[in-house]
């Protein structure tokens, strides 16, 4: 596997060849990693497009077949899949927006407003990140039952509206991007803290809040255990639970669950093509730097 080597600029390049030159095996390794990352999705598509006779043949078929529409139709008739997609969009959308707004607001307070107990409260926020709340799923369910939210979408939305990590992240961004002079100037003009947040702080951190919202969206879209516990009827299923229902369905078509998986992943893949670069930049530019 040979890859074109970047041409080194004449003067400085020769001297620094060891430091700056990129070896062929570097590319070989990265191409291998890229193939590993993408192949399972390709394979998902292959199985989702072949009929069961082909899917059970050895050696396996490695190119997509022409059975996709048949299987896709089966997905939509076996479970209310369209409804599941809508449910997922509602839940993930609400959580994404909630993250962007509530975390940037709290981050703004922690970064730029003076109030009693600020340091202690922020420390508590950070510490909650290390608490594995998933193991408390029994009482969480009891609370949801007490609220009468079993089998409803708000049982998924409300607990996920804000996160400690999001607050931590937005605080970091606001501390570095919103200057104290600007805050001071706005204060002198008589602006309230809410006006400063809404008219100055939020517009400044909107790109970061957008990326945070995306991560909230993706996490909510892919969440499994909690929806699996609280959702009971097919009408409230999110796509992930719909996949599980397809898998339970012992039909002859091996590709059914695979087709559902593919259809559940496709919306995020399309989204990722447009915003993936910003998500990567969000991690690289994240709170962990330094």
């Amino acid at each position, binding site marked *: 596997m040979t890859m074109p080597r*970047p041409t080194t600029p004449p003067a400085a390049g020769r001297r620094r060849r*060891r*430091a700056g*030159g*990129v070896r062929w095996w570097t590319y070989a*390794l990265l191409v291998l*990693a*890229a193939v*590993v*990352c993408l192949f*399972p*999705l390709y*394979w998902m598509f292959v*199985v989702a497009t072949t009929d069961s006779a082909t*899917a059970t043949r*050895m050696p*396996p078929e490695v190119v997509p077949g022409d059975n996709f529409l048949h299987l896709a139709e089966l997905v939509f008739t076996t479970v209310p899949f369209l409804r599941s997609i809508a449910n997922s969009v509602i839940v993930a959308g609400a959580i994404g927006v*909630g993250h962007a707004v509530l975390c940037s*607001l*709290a981050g*703004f*307070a922690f970064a730029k*407003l*003076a*109030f009693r107990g*600020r340091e202690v409260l922020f420390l508590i926020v950070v510490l*909650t990140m*290390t*608490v*594995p*709340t998933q*193991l*408390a799923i*029994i*009482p969480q369910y*009891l*609370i949801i039952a007490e609220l009468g939210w079993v089998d409803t979408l708000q049982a998924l939305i*409300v607990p996920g*509206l804000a996160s400690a990590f999001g607050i931590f992240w937005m605080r970091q961004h606001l501390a570095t991007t919103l200057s104290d002079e600007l805050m001071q100037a706005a204060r002198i003009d*008589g602006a*309230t803290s809410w*006006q400063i947040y809404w008219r100055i702080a939020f517009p400044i951190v909107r790109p970061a809040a957008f990326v945070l919202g995306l991560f909230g969206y993706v996490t909510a879209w*892919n969440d*499994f*255990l909690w929806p699996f516990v609280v959702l009971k009827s097919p009408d409230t299923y999110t*796509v992930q639970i719909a*996949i*599980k229902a397809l898998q339970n369905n012992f039909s002859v078509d*091996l590709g059914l669950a*695979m087709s559902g998986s*593919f259809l559940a*992943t496709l919306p*995020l893949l399309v989204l990722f093509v447009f915003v993936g670069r910003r998500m*990567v930049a969000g*991690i*690289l*530019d994240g709170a*962990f*730097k*330094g």
Partner: protein
Amino acid sequence: MTTLLGPTPAPASTSPLPAPTRIRERLGERVAPYLYIAPFFVIFAIFGLFPLLFTFYIALFDWNPIGDQVFVGADNFTRLLDDPRFWNAARNTLSIWLLSTVPQLALALLLAHVLHHARLRWAGFFRMTMLVPYITSVAATTIVFAQMFDRDYGLLNWLLGLVGLGPVDFVQSGWGSHLMIAVMVTWRWFGYTTLLYLASLQAIPRETYEAAAVDGAGGWQRFRHITVPSLRPIIVFTVVTSTIGGLQIFTEPLLVSRAAPLTCGPTRECQTLTLFLYEQGFGMFQFGYAAAIGVALFVMVVAIALINYLAATRVRPEGK
């Protein structure tokens, strides 16, 4: 519940104000920061902290969700310690965690180092592909990997067959199912971890590397003496998060075995602690016993976090 959706804004103001409004506004300004941070604390208190404390309480009862709640003291815990299913789940969890965390972090370290090259071409493309597994759901990942690892029709067994190795029944064998789940976890997280490491690497001044290169340090030496030490904080962070995540592995074992999902195979080959908790709680409706499993999980998380912390603080003086 509307209060959770957004704090009420402080009343809009114009510059010259009559006195009473002014006082009200001052008061509003003092309260405002607490309102801004309140949503998180309210949500965490109701759906995080309270359930956690409540778990300890429920664990003391024989708690049937549709029947009686009888106080039994420490009975659930003594039963749990005598329960071979619990130790089996603990072993499985530990095994899957080790098999997935160690390769994942090593791979991420190597790839981050490689991606950090100044003149790397298509760097944006490589970085983006590494995040693709992260946006793929655990459920979809499990279904496609389970198919690839299938005994009769899987791609992997076909490849093994080409080199003369007999079909391996990954799902039905203990180590095979652990390996399979570890591969899924590793696949999903190594790219994300790589980017986290890369973010830390980018904070190191490039001159450090160049100076080392001028002084004759080779690639391995630069990796060993610059990359690894400067990444120590983020490595500790990822070890802690992957430990907490590893103890909560649930979806993969649930979806791997179609025949016996709640136990991950007829003889509990790959049942993890979280899946055991789910089975007891929502499969058998023994909420008290399930809560006791939750408490055991909590103790493990705290213990491992403590070990991590001690290891991190002990290593530091030697490194600097």
